[in-house]
């Protein structure tokens, strides 16, 4: 296999994908080149190709009336990825897949089964969340091969060194499924990187060596990444290790399905109510159709950006065209005032709360519809407060936070790095900073400083490419390892009591912060698997239990400390053993160079040397 010529960073986002790339310098000591963005050719309308920096993460299953959805590299395609797919999501929503990435980390569905688009008509061939991600990556690969490689096999994306970003909150199985999609699409040289870390790498790359002026030993950087569909937080600490400054990712937040799209939808809803009320006052009735609602949402986004970006603007005009060709008579208009945006977005999504605030959790209805687990509390600041409090002792092993004697109530950031389109608004950045400073004030700590610079839309892709270069050269790297500890659930042998679950012991199979390229044998906890049968085990993860070593058996834990993940499965082939036999195995865990967790079952009495079987993560939804 030829040596890769480029490092390529791929941001596989919930709402958009982006690709940044940089040539690999022949000389390791050379200053790394600045990553460039790939302009991605895509269908933007029926029969029209345009190249854009962002590829909307939408998948449209073409109807026979649409004809072939030709691309420069494929004339007979029957589906669309990108801008045209997003646009068709307005016209023909039942045939469009959106937020596939959120489905990919949805633990209670089988993510390898064809379930998308949900509620699609019968002529639509559904695909799995994994396949949707695979199709997005496939489009990026084809676009690269078309634009950059142009038929040169050595330049094909499959041969380049690719860094693919995933949310920090992705658990082992979502990571595994992401790599599965990437390999299916044809990538070979792959590494995963957490998105907030990528944003930080982009900032580091933008600063050059000057970053050391902004971040010194003892600093704690909070990365606040609020994108179109999700919010993702990480904490990175700068630690002095034997005279050398080391960056360590010490905490990550939960997966929160809450982003800019929710904000636009809320604002659009408020404006719609207002328009209906205005029409009623004038003695008319007004009902917006679906198309007008979407236009309104786009217009609301524009108004939001204007009013949040320009502190002098009092209001923004909104006009929504009707669907027919009659434009002048059919256009509805209204305006959005500063107060409305302030109330809906700033106070609605970023309320001023104290550090004890926690996101509200509504009890799930008994019959939940199959859908995405959207955040139940829209307050980003509450989610942030919860994150900092949960990880209050993340630095207790060292750093400044523990020095005051009294145990800190929260993890205290000293620096804040923003990322994501929503955070482009200075008003929202100030609100978040203000809240954090107030919380730090409650603790008697100094204010946090915002790290400036970095393109909030494209930083993740750029940072991924910068990380790819850093891995090869001398750039600074962030250490972290797994963001969770993982456990296998072993049910105690007790008489069944109706209505009571048997007690479960959580056996730690991978500790928190397990580093890439390391593996561990799980002592104790012998599991029996049946030859020729699929055997399921319950699987758990914890983002806060930092001290559990491999093999530790946890019998009781605090609520919220350990969460159940999708079950894992061992499927023992019958080779050399009688079907139905119970084979005792122990587990071995490794974190691969790619960045995924690998669990293997090792028989205690192997039939041949190095006998072991892969344990499948994320097999199916459990309810």
């Amino acid at each position, binding site marked *: 296999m030829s040596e890769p010529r480029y490092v390529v960073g791929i941001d596989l986002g919930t709402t958009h994908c982006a690709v940044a790339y940089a040539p690999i310098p022949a000389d390791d000591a050379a200053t790394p080149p600045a990553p460039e963005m790939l302009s991605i050719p895509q269908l933007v309308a029926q029969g029209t190709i345009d190249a854009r920096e962002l590829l909307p993460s939408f998948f449209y299953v073409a109807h026979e009336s649409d004809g072939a959805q030709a691309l*420069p590299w494929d004339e007979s395609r029957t589906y669309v990825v990108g801008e045209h797919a997003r646009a068709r999501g307005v016209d023909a929503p039942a045939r469009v897949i959106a937020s596939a990435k959120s489905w990919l980390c949805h633990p209670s569905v089988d993510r390898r089964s064809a379930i998308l688009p949900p509620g699609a008509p019968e002529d639509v061939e559904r695909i799995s969340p994994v396949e949707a991600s695979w199709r997005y990556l496939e489009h990026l690969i084809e676009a690269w091969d078309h634009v950059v490689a142009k038929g040169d096999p050595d330049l094909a994306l499959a041969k380049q060194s690719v860094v693919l970003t995933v949310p920090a909150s992705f658990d082992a199985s979502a990571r595994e499924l992401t790599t599965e999609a990437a390999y299916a699409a044809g990538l070979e040289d792959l590494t995963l990187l957490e998105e907030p870390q990528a944003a930080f790498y982009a900032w580091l790359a933008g600063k050059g060596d000057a970053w050391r002026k902004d971040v010194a030993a003892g600093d704690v950087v909070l990365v606040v990444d609020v994108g179109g569909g999700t919010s993702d937080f990480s904490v990175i600490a700068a630690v002095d290790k034997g005279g050398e400054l080391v960056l360590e990712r010490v905490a990550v937040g939960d997966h929160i399905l809450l982003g800019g799209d929710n904000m636009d939808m809320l604002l659009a809803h408020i404006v719609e109510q207002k328009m209906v009320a205005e029409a009623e006052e004038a003695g008319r009735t007004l009902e917006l159709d679906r198309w007008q609602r979407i236009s309104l949402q786009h217009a609301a986004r524009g108004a939001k950006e204007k009013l949040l970006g320009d502190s002098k603007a009092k209001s923004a005009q909104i*006009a929504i*065209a009707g669907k027919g060709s009659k434009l*002048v008579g059919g*256009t*509805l208009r209204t305006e959005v005032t500063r107060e409305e945006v302030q109330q809906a977005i700033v106070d609605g999504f970023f309320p001023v709360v104290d550090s004890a605030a926690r996101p509200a959790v509504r009890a799930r209805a008994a019959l939940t519809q199959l859908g995405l687990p959207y955040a139940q509390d829209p307050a980003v600041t509450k989610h942030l407060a919860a994150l900092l409090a949960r990880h209050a002792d993340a630095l207790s092993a060292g750093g400044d936070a523990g020095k005051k004697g009294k145990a800190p109530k929260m993890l205290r950031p000293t620096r804040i790095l923003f990322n994501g389109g929503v955070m482009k608004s200075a008003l929202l950045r100030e609100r978040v900073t203000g809240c954090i400073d107030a919380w730090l004030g409650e603790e008697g700590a100094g204010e946090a400083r915002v790290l400036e610079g970095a393109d909030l839309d494209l930083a993740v892709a750029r940072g991924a490419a910068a990380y790819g270069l850093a891995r090869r050269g001398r750039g600074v790297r962030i250490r972290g390892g797994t963001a969770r500890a993982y456990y296998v659930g072993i049910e105690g042998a007790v008489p069944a009591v109706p209505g009571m679950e048997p007690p479960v012991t959580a056996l730690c199979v991978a500790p928190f912060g397990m580093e890439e390229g390391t593996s561990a044998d799980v002592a104790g906890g012998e599991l029996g698997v049946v030859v020729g049968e699929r055997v399921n085990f319950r699987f758990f993860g914890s983002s806060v239990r930092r001290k559990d070593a491999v093999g530790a058996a946890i019998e009781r834990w605090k609520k919220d400390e350990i969460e159940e993940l999708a079950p894992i499965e061992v499927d023992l082939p019958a080779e050399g053993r009688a079907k139905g036999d119970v084979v005792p195995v122990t587990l071995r865990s490794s974190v691969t160079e790619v960045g995924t967790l690998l669990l293997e079952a090792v028989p205690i009495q192997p039939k041949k040397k190095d006998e072991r079987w892969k344990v499948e993560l994320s097999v199916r939804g459990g309810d």
Partner: protein
Amino acid sequence: MVPPVAPLPFFTRLWFAWVVFFKVLFDGVFAAKVSSPQLGEPTGEAPKLAEGDKPAPVVVEKVVEKIVEKVIEAPRPAGPPPTDAALQLLALFQREGRFVDFLEEDVASFSDADIGAAARVVHGGCRKALREHVKLEPVRGEEEGAKVTLPEVSPNEVKLTGNVQGKGPHTGVLRHRGWRAVTVQLPSAVAGHDARIVAQAEVEL
């Protein structure tokens, strides 16, 4: 800006590049000749455009060239009309800003407020489309109303008005800064797409 001594003057080259761009885009045979190592006589085949068409100084971005190359690989019938690019632009403005709907509508009977509301739709959408696809800059950097002295006048760039007489350098007031397209990146059509359809009819089921 006077072109240096060269086989072809600057604007002639731009003009030629512009023409050849579309020729390559839409004429598979021509494109094949250009791309082959033994160049034929492409100049003789350059299409003539109507008098009065203003050649825009255009620097086509790399990516477009790449897409164009691929389009050529799927050969299209030779000699299609050079209006496709114009139709693409029209379709773009219609898609993003309902431009054709607006121009084709009889606005006489509507109030200014209604027209204003519609104009916001057109302005917002078309402006976004324009900025995404055409990078424009003023021909003259001075503020409008400023006094300017022109040592020499390039007929492409500057139009003299008012009391037009005598030899340069001319001194006058800048009334309009002019616009220059620095880069143009138009969407391209896939093979078989009918560019004449500026907007599809829509039927809701």
